[in-house]
């Protein structure tokens, strides 16, 4: 594997943090939003410029500081990290557009603070994607936790305060209480924390220690919301919808799932996981989460809460993909990072658009909504298809690969879990769409004229919805990156 010195990973991380002062000192909202968009565009540009190098098998890398012996703060872009960075930086642009429509539509307070911390959170997200070792990953992971706290608690009321407390308790409690000691153990036994193909723990620890460390990591990286460390996610839905959309469908939770994926493949290594039976343990934990979360989603009436439980389930698909250990499963898990992101962000955007346009939050009130907001509900259908995993949405590809992976790994149990979950997903999404278009309006007085959300919101929804469809036909570059990532992970 040829590593290549490049400053671009650092630039990609810093560009959004560097935009913060400009956002802060812009006097007019339009100027402020200009800086957000510029930063987002530059960021996406830099990430894209890394693509040819990475696809050619190179790995741009950079050492930032030698902080501990054998353990620098270092960045390295491989296929897996680039896949995630591409997803998050491209969706940042769309979310920024959506945020403008949403925040102005609702005349929210403290919009400057909101955009500042959004930019910081994106820096941290790309930092996690490009981390070369566990310490760097931990640094950006924590940075993300604290950068998103003001976003989650944006409303600054009693409920926001309670949710913020819960959010930090789970996330920081997990990372300080569980991940930090696990990291120290890894470092002491091996002297390194650098992600490598097939991991670095193999041959250094015995089975029991491996199980213990595996549990510490899977639960400690609580952003992935593996049950029972999931309760922060529905609580964090008090945030403004664009925050929920980007952070709780794309950045924060995906950082959790990505970190678990990274730790399982780069610290333990797929062969070692299989040898000590940790794959079954993680797979079972993920399966329990998938099924339970889907069942809980069924009973939620708040649209955002239903989406939140759906997210919990879908995140564990990614974890399950890693636990399958076979190429198809890994590909499916990685692809799901991208596919689920596009599908779920569309759904969240729709939820926010409905709220801005009509003030509705509960699913039971949304009957007949399709006549008033046809485009939004059409996009909602596309997003649902993506999350359920039906063609012609991109989500089909990732689920298809996961299913093939279960067969390849001879894990019929996990196959059943995935199929049951798909049915449950359909059961909690499709009635919403059906009722929106075919049921009579819940409130008789409501006008049946077309009344969509503000243009900025609508545009964002249509873009992500279209992407979700296009990804089914042209999954480039995510498919190439996922396949390349699998060879890099397995070292074969």
């Amino acid at each position, binding site marked *: 594997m040829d590593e290549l010195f490049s400053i671009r990973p650092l630039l990609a991380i810093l560009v959004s943090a560097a935009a913060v002062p400009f956002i802060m000192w812009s006097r007019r909202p339009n100027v402020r939003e200009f800086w957000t968009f510029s930063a987002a565009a530059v960021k996406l540009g830099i990430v894209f410029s890394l693509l040819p190098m990475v696809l050619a098998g190179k790995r741009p890398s950079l050492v930032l500081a*030698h902080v501990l012996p054998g353990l620098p703060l270092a960045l390295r872009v491989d296929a897996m990290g680039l896949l995630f960075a591409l997803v998050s930086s491209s969706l940042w642009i769309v979310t920024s557009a959506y945020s403008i429509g949403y925040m102005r539509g609702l005349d929210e307070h403290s919009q400057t603070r909101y955009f500042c911390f959004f930019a910081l959170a994106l820096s941290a997200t790309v930092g996690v994607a490009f981390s070369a070792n566990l310490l760097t990953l931990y640094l950006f992971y*924590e940075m993300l936790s*604290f950068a998103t706290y003001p976003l989650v*608690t944006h409303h600054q009321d009693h409920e*926001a305060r309670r949710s913020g407390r819960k959010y930090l308790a789970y996330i920081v409690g997990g990372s*300080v209480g569980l991940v930090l000691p696990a990291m*120290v153990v890894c470092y002491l036994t091996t002297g390194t924390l650098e992600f490598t193909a097939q991991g670095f723990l193999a041959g250094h620890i015995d089975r029991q220690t491996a199980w213990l460390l595996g549990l510490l990591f899977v639960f400690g990286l609580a952003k992935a919301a593996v049950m029972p460390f999931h309760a922060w996610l529905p609580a964090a839905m008090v945030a403004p919808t664009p925050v929920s959309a980007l952070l709780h469908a794309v950045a924060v939770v995906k950082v959790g799932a990505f970190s678990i994926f990274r730790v399982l493949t780069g610290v333990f290594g797929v062969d070692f996981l299989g040898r000590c039976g940790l794959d079954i343990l993680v797979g079972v934990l993920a399966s329990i989460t998938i099924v339970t979360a889907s069942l809980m989603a069924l009973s939620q009436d708040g649209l955002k809460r239903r989406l939140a439980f759906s997210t919990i389930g879908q995140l564990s698909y990614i974890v399950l993909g890693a636990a399958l250990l076979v190429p198809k499963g890994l590909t499916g898990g990685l692809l799901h990072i991208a596919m689920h992101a596009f599908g779920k962000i569309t759904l969240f955007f729709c939820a926010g658009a409905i709220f801005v346009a009509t003030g509705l939050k509960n699913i039971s009130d949304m009957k007949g909504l399709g006549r008033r907001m046809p485009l939004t509900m059409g996009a909602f259908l596309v997003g649902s298809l993506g999350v359920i995993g039906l063609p012609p949405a991109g989500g089909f590809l990732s689920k298809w690969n996961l299913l093939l992976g279960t067969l390849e790994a001879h894990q019929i149990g996990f196959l059943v879990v995935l199929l049951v979950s798909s049915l449950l997903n359909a059961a909690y999404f499709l009635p919403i769409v059906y009722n929106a278009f075919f049921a009579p309006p819940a409130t008789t007085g409501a006008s049946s004229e077309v009344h969509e959300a503000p243009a900025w919101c609508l545009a964002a929804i249509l873009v992500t919805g279209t992407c979700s469809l296009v990804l089914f036909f042209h999954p480039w570059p995510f498919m190439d990156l996922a396949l390349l990532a699998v060879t890099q992970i397995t070292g074969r």
Partner: protein
Amino acid sequence: MGHSLSRGSAERPGPGSGVRSLLHQPRGKPYMYRIRVSGCIAFEFPDRQGAFFTLYLLFVAGLLGITVTGDLFNLYVLLEVTSLTGYALIALGRNPAAPLASLHYLLLGTIGASFYLLGIGYLYILTGSLTMGDMADILTRMDPSIAVLVAFLLCMAGVWIKMAFFPLHVWLPNAYTLAPCASSSLLAPLMTKVMVYVMIRLILSVFSPDFVYRAMDLAPFVVWMSVLAILAGGVLALSQKNVKRMLCYVLISEIGYMAGGVWLGNRAGMTGAILHILNDAVMTLCLFLVINNVFYRRRNLDLEGFRGLSRSMPFTTAAMVTGALSFIGVPPTCGFFSKWYLLTGALQAGHYMFMAALLISSLINAVLFFRIIEAAYFESGTGEDGQEPAQGIQEAPMDMLVPLLVTAVGTVIVGLYTGDIVTLFIERVIPRGFT
């Protein structure tokens, strides 16, 4: 006792010189601190500025003397110079309870100093020398006797009282809380830390690590005491309403970190402890400066005084968050890296309780500081008169704000340069055989 002050440092290279240089490092800090203080002493004791600066210079001279001396008795003298000026600095303010707290500190501090002096007396009788280098030579050639042990224990007891090692901490919270802000932000980051330095110096340069860790079964006991200190400091901090007093208990908990690290008896633990002397000084300074700024504007250091701080004093709040993250141990702030070394040391020594205590303490710190951050962020604040809600930004004056921001950035810079600090200074301090 005509031992020259320079002898030890001039003639003895090798172990020790690094500790000195490391402790010299924060020498820039008193200077920075001086600029900062000019703003806040003007309203704390306008009529005693001359006295304050005289005491301040004496205090810093004493501290620097402690770190350069190679003579145990000179160390005692300088310790008393530092302590006496410290007592005076605490009693300087207008708070009517401060003199009493200072007297309390004086009584306990003097007991501590007497213990130390008694220990030195024993050593002088045993070896006939007072120079650290000579004494180390003679002690290694002597058979370990009860007398050496007693001398060591007496010295340690003295040092522990002065560094507020739980449960010998009772003087600290009152003294530092009731002291004027200018004094407490000078004393808090330096006074207890210099005692940790003295402890390390005694262990590494006077008594050999072999004697300290292997000839006695004291080490596990002290680590257990540190566990207690860390947890008790945290729990006591949780029960405080006054933020300054809360910080004092956090300080006691941090002393536990360092004492535990030293007594783990391995290289990683010792590295962590020495690194934490610097890191803890930086982050304590940061938070005490925050306290000063808040006191300057709000005159109220209870949790209510921090309400709405994020709106009226955004930069001070940002600095507070940085300091808080360092106490919680979030990378890349410096607090993370010393904690990392301490955790490694604890794991290597197989002392899982100490490891657990460090982690629990991090979580307690998270609760402590997020309580303040919540008050600053969620609740609407009150203005200077305590009645009207604060309108607009009311930051502290520039000469108070700039040093605070420099310190806050310093927590990150020091964290990022951990690698250099360890290889250039700390590695040279710890004897090579010490694993």
